[in-house]
């Protein structure tokens, strides 16, 4: 008889001969070390389906979960039309698929509806601890039961558990066979080599990927579709503004570098550019940046060119006049909830120290994060400064002003930041400021990051 077992993120199929064709066609490989067929755990569904269809008798020792018999929503949900549609498409795809919805359009509620429908032990995988706390709170509200947590110092497995990507990977050996349904929040992270194991190492036959920006510049969203399921539904920001998202305005504020900053900026930029010219490197082209870093590692002057690039970027991103500009914006939006985004932690802490304001970075401890975010939601604090940890997913509907003090050229980062202030609230009109140092490379960075349909419409 064929026997299926789970081992360290893989499934092992014993009892099938080396000469059998079917394991090969399903993507399993013969492992001579254990004299059995082996494949990534995500092949579990295909293997079981094949064995069942072919009426081949097998003993399933891989799966260590059962259907949850008593799973009911503790709170009624009236889904919005796009949520109903997305759920239908996902169910039609046999419970495997990816959904792209703008921030604030109710991706988490869609996941709750899917969990209630599938009724299998569920693991929700999230990229940050803030999101872990947020999901745990939301799932507790809707299911009225204890929700497990894995990550941020917690190791409490329950039928519905929220884990960070890192913890899901570290504990893959024990949680891989434990859940029948996995929800990948911010699924665009999944193709990162260190994160992919969260998908390949789990046997879960049902999978849902959620993201506001599934497309990646490297095209690796195909890996999400391969390991989670195809894109089954896509909603655009432009279609949802004013129905489920707050209307918003966008303003670019240009600041000037101070004379000493300008001098240092020009010197560093010219060193960087002359290295590019000398070695005919086009950083704007495909793989251009990778080529620069590679050449800088062994060509003479490369290290200095890298340092110069870092310096000119740092000067442009954190000039002193930017600080004044931010202060003016803060003063003009008194009483409103404001989030300031920076590219680097250094600048975030510099602003935090100057404005005596809370800074959220990876260094902020769990307890303090909760304290700060709760005070922000309650309105006791109206200003939050962050580098990247609030870029994604964290739900702060009260925030109505976003100030991008500095950032990368990534469209995703910018759209996600915009998403923080677009959560719908009655009468809310959001505003996003982008502060750029005039006559620096920041202008082109800004142009590149605004190439998204959210910015293609006029406001």
């Amino acid at each position, binding site marked *: 008889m064929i026997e299926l077992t789970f081992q360290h993120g893989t499934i092992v199929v014993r009892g099938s001969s080396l000469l059998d064709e079917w394991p090969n066609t399903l993507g399993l490989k013969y492992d001579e070390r254990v004299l059995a067929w*082996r494949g990534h755990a995500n092949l579990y569904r295909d293997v079981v389906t094949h064995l069942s269809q072919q009426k081949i008798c097998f003993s399933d020792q891989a799966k260590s979960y059962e259907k949850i018999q008593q799973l009911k929503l503790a709170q009624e949900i009236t889904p919005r039309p796009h949520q109903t549609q997305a759920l239908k498409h996902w169910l039609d795809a046999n419970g495997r698929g990816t959904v792209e919805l703008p921030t604030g359009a109710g991706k988490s509620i869609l996941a709750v509806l899917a969990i209630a429908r599938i009724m299998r032990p569920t693991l929700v995988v999230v990229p940050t601890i803030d999101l872990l706390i947020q999901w745990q709170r939301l799932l507790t509200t809707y299911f009225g039961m204890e929700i497990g947590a894995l990550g941020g110092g917690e190791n409490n497995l329950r039928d519905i558990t929220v884990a960070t990507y890192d913890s899901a990977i570290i504990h893959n050996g024990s949680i891989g066979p434990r859940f029948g349904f996995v929800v990948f929040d911010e699924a665009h992270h999944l193709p990162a080599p260190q994160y992919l194991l969260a998908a390949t190492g789990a046997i879960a036959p049902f999978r849902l990927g959620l993201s506001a920006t599934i497309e990646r510049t490297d095209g690796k969203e195909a890996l999400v579709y391969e390991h989670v399921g195809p894109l089954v539904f896509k909603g655009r920001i432009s279609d949802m503004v004013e129905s489920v998202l707050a209307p918003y305005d966008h303003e670019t504020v240009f600041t000037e570098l101070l004379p000493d900053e300008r001098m240092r900026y020009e010197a560093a930029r010219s060193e960087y550019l002359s290295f590019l010219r000398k070695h005919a490197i086009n950083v704007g082209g495909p793989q251009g940046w990778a080529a620069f870093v590679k050449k800088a590692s062994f060509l003479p002057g490369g290290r200095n060119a890298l340092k110069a690039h870092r310096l000119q970027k740092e000067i442009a991103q954190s000039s002193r006049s930017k600080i004044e500009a931010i202060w003016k914006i803060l003063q003009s939006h008194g009483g409103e909830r404001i989030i300031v985004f920076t590219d680097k932690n250094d600048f975030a802490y510099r602003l935090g120290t100057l404005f005596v304001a809370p800074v959220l970075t990876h260094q902020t401890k769990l307890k303090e994060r909760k304290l700060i975010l709760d005070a922000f939601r309650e309105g006791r604090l109206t200003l939050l400064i962050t580098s990247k940890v609030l870029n994604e997913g964290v739900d702060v509907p009260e925030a109505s002003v976003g100030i991008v003090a500095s950032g990368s050229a990534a469209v995703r980062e910018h759209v996600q930041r915009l998403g923080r202030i677009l959560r719908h609230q009655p009468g809310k009109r959001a505003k996003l400021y982008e502060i750029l140092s005039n006559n620096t490379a920041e202008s082109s960075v800004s142009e590149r990051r605004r190439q998204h349909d959210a910015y293609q419409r006029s406001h």
Partner: protein
Amino acid sequence: MLTKDLINAKVVKGQLRPQFLLAEDFVSKSLAEEVLCFLAECRGERYGDVLKKGESEFGKRDKIARGLLNVAMNWAEQVDAKEFDAETRFEWFLAAEEVRAERVFTDVQSFREAVAARLSVNDTDLSNLLYSDIEENRIFEPNVSLTSTLLINEYNLNLVSFFLLTADQLVVQLKDTELESYRSLIRYIRFHELYAEAIPNKEGGFTLAISGASSVLGGANRVGRRLANFFGEILNASDWVMEVPTQFKSRKVTLRISATDRLVPRHRRTRSYVPEELKYFIERLKESVRGGWKVEVNTELINVGSGSPVLPDLRIVNETDRVCYLEFFHKWHGGALLDRMETVRKTGMKNYVVAVERSLIEKGRAKAKIGEFTNSGHFVLEYRDFPSVADVQKIVNSMP
């Protein structure tokens, strides 16, 4: 950990040779001393400042100097600058919030002065204390136990780890003929969730091919990290050669290092403890066994198809070339017993006898498993404290 730009290695005839530093080499030792002196001088400074200072002092030096600095920094600690807790910080935020709400400040400086006055602190304390606990602001404390010799060894180990992190298998040739020393190595292989296959080599020892569950599948896996963590155990062997297929500068190469590279393990492994009673019993068994049987102790590593070789305590060979293996499980070996029975049952080795101390059998899980084990035609020898020679004789005689 050493980053890619700090790796010092050469490829010679397809073999990757990390450029190890020698502790007795004057230049290397001086460089290590220089790094340690630099860090000792930085004691008590802000960690962020030490990073910047390190960059300006060593940034333009060669990768060895920068590598040594990187390794030494990893050994250092940071301590809190001043006592300032999150609750007090939160109170300060609330006070600043109230001041900002007044919206009467045209510039940041006047706002800060008002906040400082509200909190009854001066502006410098406001700046210094607010985020004194973040890494950059913490106080740098170099590790005093780190000597230049240790630093050089640590640098060398880091060079190897760098390549292991991206590997998915390694092959280690061990020349040790005392197989008892393999037992703990195999235990560590299992601890790190790795698989091994043992192949006897010309030197009388065994070559172990070590890999992870997903090594055969390629792609994203975490085998490299496990191999890097396990590597230290190899250093405890007396004579070894390790080969690792890897990539360097987009070329497929083999990392080859051996005991002659004189890498020192971070932790010395203690020799396996063999109780005196067991030694005595084996001696008695050797002398007393009858019927053409000969007793050999720890002489064979067997690949049983479970991904982990087993080392039976005794190999009992008959002059007609019948072989019987015997492994003892005492009351503290419950987990190992269950594993072994599972493995032996799956591979159908009927001549592998598990000798089990009776108190272990009386426990629930083992009892049920032993029932399954014997029902499938395998042999169990029960004993209290130690088996008798007669018990062993009886069971080997009943071997098919």
